[in-house]
């Protein structure tokens, strides 16, 4: 049992590391790997507040856009390599998360989601009126790489490894939170905020901390996006579709689970890219008909996400009870 699990882990690590080398003959597949990882970073970042704390933000593009714009502004206005804007974007995102989070995190359920949608749209419209941010036309990064620090490569391989490193760090941090006291409190808040409060958990504070952390990493994903694509405009930075995609990716894989967003990204990003490559040229929007239908089918049969498939297997007879690591509870009745 232990060894087969170890083997599986090893295999995953080998595949993850070797992927861009194996696919080096095909820039498209290589790039697809990088795109999956980038999507997984933002969805995993969303997962901290949306999955673990159960606060379904549908406005996370705000942070993604701040990250992307911070990077491009570093280049356009300060003549620095875009990636140097990333830490500034993260700090700014944390600050915005406090400003937005303090009033909205008090809202329950759908109200919070709707408020985050409104904030997202508000920021999108405002960004398109700012000449400093390039207005609606958007801003471009370095047209041609000046130094390697511009992170502008022809091959997707460097992006792949950078994204892999960031994702690993983020998942490591999430794993640590999961097992820390904060993770315990977040789960309690998600189950029942009232109960958690009555036990003396400062729900507001923990939710806000999760929101801030989530914002910082979403912002980093935005900065990385800018380095790879070299262009940002209000729609691709702050668009509502971007926010919804983060939610959908995490929900599809399994929100509130460490690898849920990654699984979601592994399914959705290739699905989107491949269906567009195969069907998009015909120009009838079949791409999204297929894409939408597959999401509907997964939601219909696995409403808790794909990872719920694995959960059920060890407990065939029982009613979807969460795995209990404590053997003592086995003979309770």
């Amino acid at each position: 049992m232990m060894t087969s699990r170890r083997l599986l882990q090893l295999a995953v690590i080998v595949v993850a590391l070797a992927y861009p080398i194996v696919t080096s003959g095909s820039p498209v597949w290589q790039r697809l790997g990088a795109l999956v990882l980038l999507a997984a970073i933002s969805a995993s970042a969303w997962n901290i507040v949306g999955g673990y704390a159960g606060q379904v933000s549908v406005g996370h593009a705000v942070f993604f856009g701040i990250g992307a714009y911070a990077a491009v502004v570093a280049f356009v206005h300060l003549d620095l390599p875009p990636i140097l804007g990333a830490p500034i974007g993260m700090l700014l995102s944390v600050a915005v998360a406090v400003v937005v989070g303090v009033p909205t995190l008090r809202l329950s359920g759908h109200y919070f989601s709707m408020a985050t949608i409104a904030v997202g749209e508000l920021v999108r419209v405002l960004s398109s009126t700012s000449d400093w941010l390039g207005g609606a036309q958007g801003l471009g990064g370095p047209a041609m790489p000046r130094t390697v620090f511009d992170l502008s490569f022809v091959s997707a391989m460097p992006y792949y490894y950078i994204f892999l490193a960031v994702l690993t760090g983020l998942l490591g941090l999430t794993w640590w939170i999961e097992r820390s006291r904060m993770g315990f409190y977040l789960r309690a808040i998600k189950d029942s905020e009232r109960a958690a409060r009555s036990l003396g958990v400062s729900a507001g504070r923990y939710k806000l901390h999760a929101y801030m952390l989530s914002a910082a990493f979403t912002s980093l994903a935005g900065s990385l996006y800018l380095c790879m694509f070299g262009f940002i405009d209000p729609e691709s930075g702050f668009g509502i579709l971007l926010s919804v995609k983060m939610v959908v990716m995490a929900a599809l894989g399994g929100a509130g689970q460490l690898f849920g967003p990654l699984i979601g990204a592994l399914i959705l990003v290739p699905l989107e890219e491949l269906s567009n490559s195969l069907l998009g040229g015909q120009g009838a929007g079949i791409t999204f008909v297929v894409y939408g239908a597959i999401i509907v089918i997964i939601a219909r049969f696995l409403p808790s996400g794909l990872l719920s498939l694995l959960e059920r297997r060890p407990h065939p007879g029982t009613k979807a009870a969460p795995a209990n690591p404590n053997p003592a509870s086995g003979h309770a009745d």
Partner: protein
Amino acid sequence: MVELSRRALTVGAASAAFAFATDANAEGVVKIGAIYPLSGNSASAGNYEKMAIELGADLVNKGDPELAKVLPLAKGGGLSGLKGAKIQMVFADNQGTPAAGQNQTLRLITEEKVVAMIGAYQSGITLTASAVAEKYGIPFVNPESVAANLTERGFKWFFRVTPVAADFAKAYSAFLKEQKAAGRKVDSIALVHENTEYGNSVASVIADVFAKDKLNVSMKVAYSANSTDVQPQVLQLKEKNPDAAIFVSYTSDAILYAKTMKEQNWKPAILIADDGGFNDPAFVKAMGSVTEGLISRSVFAPGKPGSVAAICDALYKKKTGGDGLDDVSARALQGFLVLADAINRAGSTEPAKIQAALRATDIKPEQLVAGYDGVKFDDKGQNILASTLITQLRNSQYVSVWPKSRATSELILPYKGW
């Protein structure tokens, strides 16, 4: 380190170029990639452009006897410079996002092994897509994006056939000054534009040019594209009642403005609509009857019978089942023909040779579908002979009214509307 990445770049480009050349020649087929918004908000325009480019490919591959008399490229049987190699178009959907534009361009270049690219309608997407082509050393012909910065990036593989926003602004300015000289009142001008890339860039250039030319832009109204309602804007216009109004809008808002102006019963003496939505065949069909006398710009006017433009217009109508060429589709077709002409002259599918042929392009106005003064690229890849016509909507059809030398009909003012 700088050196390293640059060298990797050139080596990559050269080896890629070599691979493509052999690949394409072997099959007697020249593959060209086209990236357009085939879904999303601009899908309507994208699909019209796709049909125009398909028509262009048919002209080269199958030919049209009548058109061949004036345009040798259309005599059929493929590209004569490449032993009759046929053009094969590979279309991809940019989904209206810069990211998809870039991903798909990469696929067309590396998987489909296209020898040249054409696209991508929205300026932002043209920007990201052409950056990929530049890195791979593949010629990118842009028939229609107007943002000024596209040709300011020092790119070597980027060629833009269309006039840019400044050309439009100068045409409007000259046109309005002519009206003033003829005794019409043009003391106050309203500039109404949508607030995405297209409207913003065009409107700011118009404002700059007008300021220089001492034309008084008395009010500027920016609004968000895809509005649910435009009544407040129309009421604002009604209150200030400027002598002339210029609209820069996409189709969705163009329809709402036309409807709302009729509802609120307001019309200026001169109503100019900058191309965009007002030239969309769907707009003309639906709103033509309530926008009689609307002035617009277009690179396209059907022209005299027997001209390249007139024949292509007829062929396009046959293909679409009724919709003739308009500003956007004519630019797409023209862009394609420029590229096909260059590949033909290059006599090769090697990207570097196509690039050299594009640089040497010199097409005379009588050979054009679009109403340019010719096609000739400067060092930045901009067509220096690109120009625009001013057209007027008459009985749900645009006719050219300015400049005089190209006009097919007399200008009728004031604006009649409904």
